[in-house]
């Protein structure tokens, strides 16, 4: 973590607030490197180590009539891991005030959060540390922490808040934008009507990818999952962002009347959250979609490879995780590292190629049935892609 000062006013990202020249900002080493890469070191007047203030660092103190600034540079999933603690604070300490900081892209996912008073983007204005009673950050909590190989992510974050030993509802908590909820509802209804499908047909979300290929479900497996779900007479919703267009094209489901292309209508995380809140259940790799679905108690089937699903999913309701027992695993590769056993062209790791789409869908059906969702009579799959399921 560093303290930086800019030479001039600068907006480090189109989705972030303007950083003012001469003012100190707190930034993670990774994000600082991005700034250096995207701009130039010349825009920085100074880079200094961030010295922790032990008196202000939050560790479970009483927050009644107090304020806390908390931030995390990671993705949407990481932000979900934090949310049970925000709920606990707000439900426990009267008049507590939470400032929440995250990456510019992810602020949309936290915009309607019921337990956040002020949403800010990184870099964090250092003056806020002075202004607030306490601060908390989570640098390296998963990335450089051996405990993360055995402890569930929700426990890691709860401990970081100083709440270890306390009973906290660990289900994540997110807010829905009413505008985006209506938009997504209209889009899904229009699709079902256009496809002459009943409005109560089960819609199973399918996470198109994780933030890295090492945790993503390989394309042929996504294709098989879609095929089997369609065979059961259910709709598949391809969940992702507009950036996932290339993956969706590879699936060959452009004209499939039982596939809803949610990613096309996803401007930001508000769309993804609103849509996921409307669907019947979700199948996905270790990605934000899975954790968002948990916030709405949706049936979830997580498809895991490099590390065990229990490290992320253990507290989710109505949730199952598929893991791979393989000699090279668990390797805990998570980000930019390359798997030694990856496929030459796709770079997909061997473990993610070991999954069984039939089992994955079968488990989703089990979960959906347990929530009393009615299934239509199985109907032939639409024309087009028909994978070899042998």
């Amino acid at each position, binding site marked *: 973590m560093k303290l930086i000062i800019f030479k001039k006013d600068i907006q480090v990202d189109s989705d972030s607030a303007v950083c003012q020249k001469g003012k100190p900002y707190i930034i993670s080493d990774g994000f600082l490197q991005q700034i250096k890469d995207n701009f130039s070191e010349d825009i920085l007047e100074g880079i200094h180590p961030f010295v922790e203030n032990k008196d202000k660092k939050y560790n479970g103190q009483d927050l009644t009539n107090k304020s806390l600034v908390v931030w995390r540079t990671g993705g949407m999933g990481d932000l979900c891991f934090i949310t049970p603690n925000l709920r606990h604070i707000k439900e426990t300490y009267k008049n507590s005030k939470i400032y929440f900081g995250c990456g510019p892209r992810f602020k949309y996912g936290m915009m309607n959060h019921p337990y956040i008073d002020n949403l800010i983007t990184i870099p964090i204005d250092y003056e806020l540390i002075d202004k607030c009673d306490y601060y908390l950050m989570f640098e390296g909590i998963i990335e450089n922490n051996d405990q993360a190989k055995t402890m569930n992510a929700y426990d890691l974050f709860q401990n970081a808040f100083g709440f270890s030993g306390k009973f906290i509802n660990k289900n994540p908590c997110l807010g829905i934008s009413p505008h985006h909820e209506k938009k997504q509802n209209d889009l899904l209804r229009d699709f079902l009507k256009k496809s002459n499908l009943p409005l109560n047909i089960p819609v199973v979300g399918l996470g198109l990818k994780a933030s890295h290929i090492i945790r993503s479900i390989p394309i042929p497996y996504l294709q098989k999952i879609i095929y089997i779900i369609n065979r059961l007479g259910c709709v598949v919703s391809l969940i992702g962002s507009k950036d996932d267009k290339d993956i969706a094209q590879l699936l060959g489901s452009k004209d499939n009347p039982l596939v809803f292309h949610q990613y096309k209508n996803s401007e930001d995380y508000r769309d993804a959250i609103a849509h996921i809140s409307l669907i019947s259940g979700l199948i996905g790799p270790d990605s934000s979609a899975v954790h968002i679905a948990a916030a709405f108690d949706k049936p979830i089937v997580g498809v895991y490879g490099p590390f*065990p*699903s*229990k490290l992320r*999913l*253990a*507290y*989710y*309701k*109505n*949730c*199952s*995780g*598929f*893991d*791979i*027992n*393989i*000699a*090279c*695993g668990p390797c805990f590769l998570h980000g930019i590292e390359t798997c*030694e*056993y990856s496929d*030459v062209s796709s770079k997909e790791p*061997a*473990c993610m*190629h*070991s*999954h*069984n789409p*039939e*089992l994955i869908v*079968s*488990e989703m059906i*089990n*979960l959906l049935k*347990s929530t009393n969702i009615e299934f239509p009579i199985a109907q032939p799959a639409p024309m087009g892609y028909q994978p070899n399921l042998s």
Partner: protein
Amino acid sequence: MTFKPNKGANFLGGPKTEISDDQIKHMINELGTVINNQGELLKKFGSKLSEVMFKMSKMDEQLQMQRVAIRIQTDRFNVAMKTIISLGIIDSDIMNICAGLTENKTLPITSDGKINSFVSLSRYNTSEDMPRPEGAT
């Protein structure tokens, strides 16, 4: 899958040639025990491969072989190891790795390129009386 050395380069000082699938299979068969026990080797020393490759790149007369090996490595690491060893390009590092091959671990990828693994299912906060899909442990 066939690996072709660059045009004009000598292959281990011999005639211009290429490594075919059959040749690789032959090498794999010859290596037998070593191959069947390298699961642990790969876990321990996988990250060393680039180092080994770098050292090999310093061997002028075997430069072409090194290129071939790198191409194989990008496909399947264990096949690369087998090929390197079987072709006699073994420096002290690789010899040490081979000497450590005592534990009988299962290879993540078998010699014919199939993935050696099985799927397990964990249910979280879900009714235990649900039927378990056939095939999941």
